């Protein structure tokens, strides 16, 4: 629709025509696309769980509900991981935002690093460190300290919870730290004026105000934890500790496969997360938590004396356990000939790097696919995020509330359930022949990371005054031109940072990829898991060291870009 400016101007006077058709078209397109992405797999899981070869059947659901031990294990991992992760994340937020901890600006960057190291690698490294008989810690205890008993055993529920909590603690940290920063210090001061002690003011005023952030992050962690596959696969399965995520994987890989029962597990996880999201709404609805106003605050830093060194040590301990020790273990495992109980047999050896670089047939195809998927996912999610948030923030089109809600739903959708739904949706859908191709992985990634794109873009959009866009429209620019030449350049710093983070996150994805890949569409994280199943642990270490190197180079790029943006 090419229109000249003088044709547009008189139209502006007519209120009923305030919405030009292009916005409605964009909104309709996005609603259809997002609904197809998010709702189709959910519906497919529900349908798949309730039918077998003979028609409608409750057989799979009954089977699943009678597996009380696995359900119990799943809930245990969900609840304990969430509690521990929120505890660690909340404590880190306090220590780094409200206390005069030395080195807190560096630590703030370091404690979120676990987000960029896939829990699969952390779990594998901790399994080498803490397995009951052959684990390095126990070997050290036996050979050096002369311990007759093993010192630690991370194969089992405790190990799964420990590693998962280490991996997910950055989520509560980010949300709670943001809430602490956004709080008006006057609230605590008025409590002090009315006679409360420093601790009392904090406990009675600030803690309740952090509740929404803590609850919100708890739900995020819980959804990830109950659908977790990689950590329980590595640390749980060897000790006979199974959870829903490993059951879904097992049932699909069984001989013969039990797809309907896998879908029934997916449905159970969906029901649990839906109930929780509802519960969160019910808890938070009853009270008002508005403390974030237009004013910017500087959180008050509490001086705690020499205790601050102890706090710093705790934060460093977290960084060591969650990132440094696992990464060092991987590097070490990549550099020895093989891992065995007999320390004397292990020797320095570069052949594993040689193997993954020059012999292992999957390295290049997986790296190629991961980079392709990472960049395509990041680009599409940024574009969709900008489009969706523009409709939600800038227009009053009907259905924008629906668009907002549906595009946030993947946060409550464990990625293994999403992948299961996509399998069910596209296996028989010859109209959209994406089953077994790289496109189905792309669809999974885009759906899974959509909320990140929408949140980042709407944050950036809310900071832009609409008058800039209005000016462009009044001057005759079309919607497409306005988005391209006004909105896009102004949101670019945010989008560049979001793009890179999405790229890094997509490179780490395991739970959805493991159900959707084929030999030609395998990705790096799946190649790592393949090597794990193939028992080729040193090659695995070498491959993951290479993968981590790429990740950290990309992260370094984000940090530099951010510093440049701050300097400008």
């Amino acid at each position, binding site marked *: 629709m090419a229109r000249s400016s003088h044709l547009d101007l008189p139209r502006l006077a007519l209120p009923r025509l305030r919405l030009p058709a292009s916005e409605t078209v964009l909104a309709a397109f996005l609603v259809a696309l997002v609904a197809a992405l998010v709702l189709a797999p959910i519906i497919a899981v529900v349908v798949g769980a309730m039918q077998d070869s003979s028609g409608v059947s409750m057989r799979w659901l009954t089977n699943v509900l009678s597996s009380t031990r696995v359900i119990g294990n799943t809930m245990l991992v969900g609840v304990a991981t969430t509690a521990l992760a929120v505890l660690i994340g909340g404590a880190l937020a306090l220590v780094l935002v409200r206390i005069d901890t030395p080195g807190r600006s560096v630590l703030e960057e370091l404690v979120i690093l676990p987000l960029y190291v896939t829990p699969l690698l952390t779990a594998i490294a901790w399994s080498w460190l803490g*397995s*009951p*008989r*052959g684990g390095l810690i126990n070997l050290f205890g036996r050979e050096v300290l002369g311990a007759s008993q093993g010192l630690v055993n991370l194969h089992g529920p405790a190990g799964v919870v420990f590693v998962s909590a280490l991996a997910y603690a950055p989520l509560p940290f980010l949300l709670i730290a943001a809430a602490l920063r956004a709080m008006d210090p006057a609230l605590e001061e008025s409590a002090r004026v009315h006679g409360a002690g420093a601790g009392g003011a904090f406990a009675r005023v600030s803690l309740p105000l952090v509740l929404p952030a803590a609850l919100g992050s708890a739900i995020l962690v819980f959804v990830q934890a109950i659908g977790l596959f990689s950590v329980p696969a590595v640390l749980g*399965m*060897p*000790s*006979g500790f*199974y959870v829903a995520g490993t059951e879904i994987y*097992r*049932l699909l*890989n*069984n*001989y*013969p496969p*039990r797809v309907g029962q896998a879908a029934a597990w997916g449905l159970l996880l969906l029901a649990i997360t839906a109930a929780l999201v509802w519960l969160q709404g019910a808890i938070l609805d009853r009270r008002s938590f508005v403390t974030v106003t237009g004013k910017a605050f500087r959180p008050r830093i509490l001086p705690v004396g020499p205790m601050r060194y102890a706090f710093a040590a705790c934060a460093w301990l977290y960084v060591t356990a969650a990132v440094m020790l696992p990464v060092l273990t991987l590097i070490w495992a990549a550099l020895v000939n*093989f*891992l*065995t*109980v*007999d320390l004397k*047999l292990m020797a320095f050896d570069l052949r594993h790097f040689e193997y993954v670089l020059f012999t292992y047939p999957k390295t290049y195809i997986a790296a190629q696919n991961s980079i392709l998927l990472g960049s395509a996912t990041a680009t599409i999610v940024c574009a969709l995020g900008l489009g969706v948030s523009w409709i939600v923030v800038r227009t009053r089109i009907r259905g924008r509330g629906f668009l907002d809600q549906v595009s946030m739903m993947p946060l409550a959708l464990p990625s293994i359930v999403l992948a299961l739904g996509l399998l069910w949706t596209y296996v028989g859908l010859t109209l959209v022949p994406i089953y077994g191709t790289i496109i189905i992985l792309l669809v999974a990634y885009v759906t899974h990371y959509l909320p990140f794109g929408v949140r980042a873009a709407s944050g950036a959009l809310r900071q832009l005054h609409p008058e800039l866009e209005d000016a462009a429209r009044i001057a005759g620019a079309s919607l497409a031109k306005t988005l391209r030449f006004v909105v896009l350049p102004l949101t670019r710093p945010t989008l560049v940072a979001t793009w890179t983070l999405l790229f890094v996150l997509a490179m780490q994805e395991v739970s959805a990829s493991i159900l959707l890949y084929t030999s030609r569409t395998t990705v790096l994280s799946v190649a790592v898991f393949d090597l*794990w*199943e*193939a*028992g*080729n*642990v040193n090659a695995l270490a070498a491959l993951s060291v290479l993968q981590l190197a790429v990740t950290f180079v990309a992260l370094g790029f984000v940090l530099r870009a951010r510093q440049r943006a701050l300097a400008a």
Partner: protein
Amino acid sequence: MLPREQAPKAWTDLLKPEFKGRKLVIQDSAAGTSFNQMYLLEKLLGADFMRRWGRQDPVIVATSAQLIDMLVRGEALVGATVDHFRAFEPDAAKAGIVGVYPTEGMPLAVAPIAIFKDAPHPNAARLFMDYALSEEGQNLLAVEIFGAYSMRRGIRPPPGQLPLAETKPLLPTDFSDYERAAQNFPETFEKYFRA
């Protein structure tokens, strides 16, 4: 690691008390070959053996490579692999793994070769099949690459392994029963090893 002389000699040795509680490794119900192993052992030694085996609380892994890795890293003592050749691979032998042929016999998984009915290049497939089944092909594919036994006469066993004639291979006899049991394998495995 288990001293060589304490290694089990028969399947029923796996029921000894010293192998109770995460000392044995078995493979998950993730493959036709693991169905083959469990089916033949159940036929030979009975449901009671299977139940008692399950009560030994073995470690369950997905693949035979993981099974060997568990033994090499000293996480478990004995593994009932479905791919016997893993135990004879150079790295496993170097790490002290010893392959045992159980006295009752070993379930034999037969690896078939076939051509799809509507294969796009049936002649190329036939040529490949002829080669794969030839003396040269069997020596290369079965023995050298996989370390498995060849069904062709006159092919020597892989290095370190007994000649096939000196082993006691177990094979299914009733194929309709075999087929029926295969359909229920996930549930059977569940009953014995994950109850």
